C-alpha cells in the first residue's frame, strides 16, 4: 500500500493496530454514551412531573428502547473492549491481537450496526420502540410494523457478528500469545476479566443470534414463530433471556475486574485471594448460563422449574459475596492513596454491593410477583450496571489514561467529577428504587399516585450525573494539551504495560518480554536481524469495506433493494481484497510465546474451534425453537409426509462424502501430493454445491406446491433451520473456493489451512447429521 501519513483519515479508516482500534472503540463508545444519555435525560424530564407532554407516548417508547439498547450494547461493553483492545496485548507481552484485520472488522461492524439501528429514528413510524428486551409478539410485523424495528434487529445482527469476531480473537490471543513464563495465574486481573467475559460471550450471543434470525425471518419472510400462539411470547422469552442473563455478567465483568486491577495498586498491597476470585467468577459465569428463568417467573411456567431457577440464582450471590469480601480484605494493612481511579473503583464496589443485595429480592418468585415490571427492577440493574460496571470502567479509564495518552489528567478536576458523579447518580438511583409501585416504561403518571417526589429527585440526580461527564471530557481533553508528562509508570504498578513508554511505541515492546521462574518480568532485546521487522501498523482496506458492504446490504433489505445490490458488490469486492492482501500471518515474527494451554494447536485452527463452539449454541437455539413449537402444537405432520425422504437422505450421503473427500485432501497434503489435494478440495466443493442445488430444488418444489414460509409452523421451522444450515454450507464453499485458488498458486502452508477449514466443514456436517432425523424421520 502506498505511504499513508499517520493520523490521516485514511490511516484511521484502515488501521489494524490494537492500540488504534482501542482508541476508535473508546471515542465511539463515548459517542454512544452521549446518544443514550441524551435520550435518558429527555425521558427523565418527561417523567419529572405528572401528566407532562414533552414526549408523546410513542416517542417515549422509542427513547427508552434505544436508550437501553445503546447503553448495554453500544456503550458499556464497547468501553470495556476499548480498554481490552489497548491494554490486554500489552499486559500479556504481545504486540497485537491474534487476528488484527478481524479486530478492525469487529470495530467497523460495531459502528455501522449502531448507525443502522439509529437510522430508524428518521424513518416513518420511528425507531424500534418495544423496550430493549423486544418481547414477542409485540416485535412482530403485525404489532410493530414500522421499518425502524427491522433496522434495529438488523443492526443487532451486525453487532453480534462484531462481538463473535472479537470473542474468537481474544480467546486465541490470551491463550496463545502470552510472554514465555507468563502462566495463566500470572496474568493481571483485567486480562482475566476479559478472558472470562469472552467465554460468556461465546456461549450467550449465539442465543440472541438465533432469536434475532428467527425474528428477522418472521418479519421479512413471514414465518410464524413469534406470530403463532404455539411459539409466541414464551419462545422469545426463553431465547432472549438465555442470552440476556449471561449478558449482564458480560457487561459487568470488565468493570469488576478493572476494580480488581486498580485496588491493589492504590492500596499498595497484593489482591487478597486472586486465585479464589478467579475461580469464584468462573463458578458465577457457569451458573449465569443456568438462571435465565428468573426473568420468567410470572409467565406461568412449570412451578418446579421456577424453584430450581430461584435456588440457582440465589447461589450466584455466594461467589459474588466471596469476591466482594476479598476486595475489602485487600484493604487490610494497606496504605491507601485516594487518587481518582481509586475513588471510582471504591464507589463501583459500594454500588455493586447495593445492586447485588437488591438482586436477591428479584431471585424470589414470590417477591417477583410484586416487583416485576416496577421501578425496583430498574433500580437494581442501574445499581449493578451503571453504579457498578460503568463506574468501574471509568475508574479504568482514569487509571490507564496516562498510559494511552502519555499525559496525566488533573487530579483535582477528577475529584470534583467524582463527587458530582456519585451524588448525582445516587440521587437518581436511590429514588428510582423507592418507586416500587410505579410501572416501568410508562410515559406519564397521575398526580394522585404520589410518585412525583421520587421522580423529581431522580431527574435532578440524573441531570447532575449527566453533566458531570462534561468534566470528564474536559479533564481528559485538557490533559492532552497541558497535562504533565506521565512517564512509563506513574502509579508504580507491577504489570507489563507499565514497563514500556507512555504511549507505547507501535511494536509495544522494543524486545521480547519474558517472565522468569521467580516472577520477574523483563524485556530482552531481540537479536538484530537485517531483514526482519514487525509489521505492526499493517493497514488494510478490507475490514472497513466489508462492514460498509454489509451495512448497505442490510439497509437495502429493509428499505430498498438497489441499495442492497450495491452493498453486495462492495461486500464481494472487499472479500476479494481481503483474500488477496499480502498479509503475513507471521507478523509476530521474532516473538516467542508461552506454550500451555492448547499446546500444538495453531492459532487459526484454535480460532476455528472457538467459532464452531459458538455456532453450536446458535444451532441449539434454532433446533430448540423448532422443538418448542412442535411440542406446543396440537398436531404435526407425520414423519415422511411433509418432506421428501429421498432428497433428505441423498443430501445426507452427499455431505458425509464431502467430509470424507476433505479428509482425503488433508491426508494428501500431509504427504505432499498436491494434485491429490486439489482433487480432494474440488470434489468437496462439487459435493457441497450439489447439496445446495438439491436443497434449492427441494424448496422450489415445496413452493410450487404452495408451502411457503408462512404456510404453517412445520414449514416455517423447516425453512429457517435448514436455511440457516444451508447458509453455513454456502459460507464454507466461499472459503473453500479461496482455498482451491490458493492451492493452485502456492502450496506452502496448505496443510494447516485445509485442517482448519476441515474443522468448520465437519461441524456443518455434524449439524446436518442431527437436522436430517429431526426434520425427515421424526
Amino acid at each position, binding site marked *: 500500500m502506498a505511504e499513508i501519513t499517520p493520523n490521516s483519515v485514511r490511516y484511521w479508516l484502515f488501521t489494524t493496530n490494537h492500540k488504534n482500534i482501542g482508541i476508535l472503540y473508546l471515542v465511539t463508545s463515548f459517542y454512544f454514551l452521549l446518544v443514550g444519555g441524551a435520550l435518558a435525560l429527555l425521558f427523565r424530564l418527561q417523567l419529572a412531573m405528572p401528566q407532562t407532554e414533552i414526549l408523546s407516548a410513542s416517542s417515549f417508547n422509542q427513547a427508552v428502547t434505544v436508550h437501553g439498547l445503546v447503553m448495554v450494547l453500544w456503550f458499556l461493553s464497547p468501553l470495556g473492549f476499548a480498554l481490552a483492545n489497548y491494554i490486554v496485548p500489552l499486559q500479556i507481552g504481545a504486540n497485537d491481537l491474534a487476528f488484527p484485520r478481524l479486530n478492525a472488522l469487529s470495530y467497523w461492524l460495531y459502528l455501522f450496526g449502531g448507525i443502522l439501528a439509529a437510522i430508524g429514528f428518521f424513518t416513518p413510524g420511528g425507531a424500534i420502540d418495544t423496550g430493549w428486551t423486544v418481547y414477542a409478539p409485540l416485535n412482530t410485523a403485525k404489532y410493530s410494523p414500522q421499518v425502524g424495528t427491522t433496522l434495529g434487529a438488523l443492526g443487532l445482527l451486525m453487532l453480534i457478528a462484531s462481538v463473535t469476531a472479537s470473542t474468537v480473537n481474544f480467546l486465541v490471543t490470551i491463550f496463545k500469545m502470552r510472554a514465555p513464563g507468563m502462566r495463566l495465574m500470572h496474568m493481571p486481573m483485567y486480562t482475566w476479566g476479559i478472558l472470562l467475559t469472552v467465554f460468556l460471550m461465546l456461549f450467550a450471543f449465539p442465543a440472541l443470534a438465533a432469536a434475532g434470525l428467527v425474528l428477522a425471518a418472521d418479519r421479512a419472510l413471514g414465518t410464524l414463530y413469534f406470530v403463532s400462539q404455539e411459539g409466541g411470547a414464551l419462545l422469545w422469552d426463553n431465547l432472549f433471556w438465555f442470552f440476556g442473563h449471561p449478558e449482564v455478567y458480560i457487561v459487568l465483568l470488565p468493570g469488576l475486574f478493572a476494580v480488581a486491577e486498580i485496588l491493589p495498586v492504590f492500596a499498595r498491597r497484593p489482591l487478597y485471594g486472586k486465585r479464589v476470585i478467579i475461580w469464584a467468577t468462573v463458578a458465577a459465569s457457569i451458573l449465569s448460563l443456568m438462571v435465565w428463568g428468573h426473568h420468567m417467573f410470572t409467565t406461568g411456567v412449570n412451578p418446579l422449574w421456577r424453584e430450581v431457577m430461584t435456588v440457582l440464582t440465589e447461589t450466584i450471590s455466594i461467589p459474588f459475596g466471596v469476591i466482594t469480601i476479598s476486595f475489602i480484605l485487600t*484493604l487490610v494493612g494497606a496504605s491507601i492513596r485516594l487518587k481518582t481511579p481509586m475513588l471510582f473503583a471504591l464507589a463501583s464496589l459500594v454500588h455493586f454491593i447495593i445492586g447485588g443485595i437488591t438482586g436477591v429480592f428479584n431471585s424470589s418468585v414470590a417477591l417477583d410477583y410484586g416487583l416485576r415490571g416496577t421501578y425496583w427492577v430498574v433500580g437494581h440493574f442501574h445499581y449493578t450496571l451503571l453504579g457498578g460496571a460503568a463506574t468501574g470502567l471509568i475508574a479504568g479509564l482514569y487509571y490507564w489514561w496516562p498510559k494511552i495518552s502519555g499525559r496525566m489528567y488533573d487530579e483535582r478536576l477528577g475529584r470534583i467529577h467524582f463527587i458530582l458523579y456519585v451524588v448525582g447518580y445516587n440521587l437518581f438511583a436511590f429514588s428510582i428504587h423507592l418507586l416500587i409501585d410505579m410501572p416501568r416504561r410508562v410515559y406519564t403518571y397521575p398526580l394522585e399516585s404520589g410518585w412525583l417526589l421520587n421522580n423529581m429527585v431522580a431527574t435532578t440526580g440524573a441531570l447532575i450525573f449527566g453533566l458531570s461527564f462534561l468534566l470528564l471530557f474536559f479533564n481528559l481533553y485538557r490533559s492532552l494539551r497541558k497535562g504533565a508528562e506521565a512517564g512509563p509508570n506513574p502509579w508504580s504498578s507491577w504489570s507489563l504495560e507499565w514497563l514500556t513508554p507512555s504511549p507505547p511505541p507501535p511494536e509495544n515492546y522494543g524486545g521480547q518480554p519474558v517472565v522468569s521462574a521467580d516472577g520477574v518480568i523483563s524485556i530482552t532485546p531481540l537479536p538484530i536481524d537485517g531483514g526482519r521487522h514487525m509489521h505492526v501498523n499493517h493497514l488494510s482496506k478490507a475490514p472497513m469495506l466489508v462492514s460498509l458492504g454489509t451495512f448497505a446490504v442490510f439497509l437495502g433489505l429493509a428499505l430498498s433493494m438497489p441499495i442492497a445490490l450495491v452493498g453486495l458488490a462492495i461486500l464481494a469486492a472487499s472479500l476479494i481484497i481481503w483474500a488477496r492482501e499480502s498479509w503475513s500471518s507471521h507478523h509476530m515474527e521474532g516473538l516467542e510465546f508461552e506454550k500451555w494451554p492448547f499446546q500444538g494447536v495453531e492459532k487459526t485452527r484454535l480460532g476455528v474451534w472457538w467459532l464452531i463452539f459458538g455456532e453450536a449454541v446458535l444451532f441449539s437455539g434454532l433446533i430448540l425453537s423448532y422443538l418448542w413449537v412442535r411440542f406446543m402444537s396440537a398436531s404435526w405432520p407425520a414423519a415422511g409426509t411433509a418432506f421428501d425422504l429421498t432428497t433428505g437422505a441423498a443430501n445426507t450421503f452427499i455431505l458425509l462424502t464431502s467430509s470424507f473427500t476433505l479428509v482425503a485432501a488433508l491426508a494428501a497434503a500431509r504427504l505432499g501430493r498436491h494434485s491429490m489435494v486439489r482433487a480432494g478440495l474440488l470434489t468437496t466443493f462439487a459435493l457441497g454445491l450439489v447439496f445446495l442445488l438439491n436443497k434449492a430444488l427441494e424448496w422450489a418444489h415445496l413452493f410450487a406446491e404452495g408451502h411457503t414460509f408462512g404456510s404453517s409452523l412445520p414449514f416455517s421451522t423447516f425453512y429457517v433451520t435448514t436455511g440457516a444450515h444451508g447458509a453455513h454450507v454456502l459460507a464454507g464453499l466461499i472459503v473453500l473456493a479461496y482455498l482451491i485458488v490458493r492451492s493452485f498458486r502456492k502450496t506452502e502452508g496448505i496443510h494447516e489451512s485445509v485442517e482448519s477449514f476441515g474443522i468448520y466443514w465437519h461441524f456443518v456436517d455434524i449439524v446436518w447429521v442431527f437436522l436430517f432425523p429431526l426434520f425427515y424421520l421424526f
Partner: protein
Amino acid sequence: MSEITAQWFQLFNLYALLGTVAGVVVIGLLLFNIVRYRARDGVNDPPDAPTPGRIPPERGRIGAVWILTGLVGGILLTLTFGTINTVNLILTPPRKPAMTVEVHGFQWGWKFIYPNGKETVGELRLPAGTPVLFKVTSDDVFHKFHLIEFKYGVDALPGRFNEVWFSTDIVGTYTIQCFELCGAGHSNMKSRLVIMHPSEFQKWYGGG
C-alpha cells in the same frame, strides 16, 4: 388488605431487613478499612507493595471463603423458606374461590368476563371477603395484569390462561394497570377495581 399482600410485605420486609443488615455491615467494613488504612505521610509502603516488573505474591487464606459461603448460604436458606411459603399461598388459595373471572388484556384495556356471561371493560367489580380466581389471558400481545395496591399480578399471554387468586375484605376502589410494555397505549392501559359490599355486588351482578 388481603392475605397475599400481607404475606408479601412480610416477606419483603424480611428480605429488606437481612439485606440492609448485610449491606450496612459490608459497606461499613469497607468504609472502615478505607479510613483506617489511609496512606499517612512519612509512612512507607507495606513490604508486599506492587513492584514494577514483579508478579505480586499470593495473598489470602482459603478459610475465609468457606466461612463466607456458609454465612451467605445460611441467609439464603432462610430467605428461600419464606419465598416458598409465600409462593404456595399465591398458588393455592386457602379457601376455594367462589367465582372465576376471565381477564382479557388487549391493546389497550382490560375486559372482564364473569361466570354468568356478564362482560365489563375498564372496571372490575367484586364482592368483599370473597376469594376469586382470575384466569388471565391476552387478546394480542404480552401484557401484565397487575393490582397496584395489592402488589401482585400475573402475566397475560396470548394463547394461554395464567391463574391467580385474589381476595380482600376492604371495600373501595383500586387500580389495575398493565405492567408490561405493550405499545403506544401502555401507560393508559388501566382499569378500576371496585370492591363492593356483598349485597351491593349481588344487586349489580344479578342472578345466575
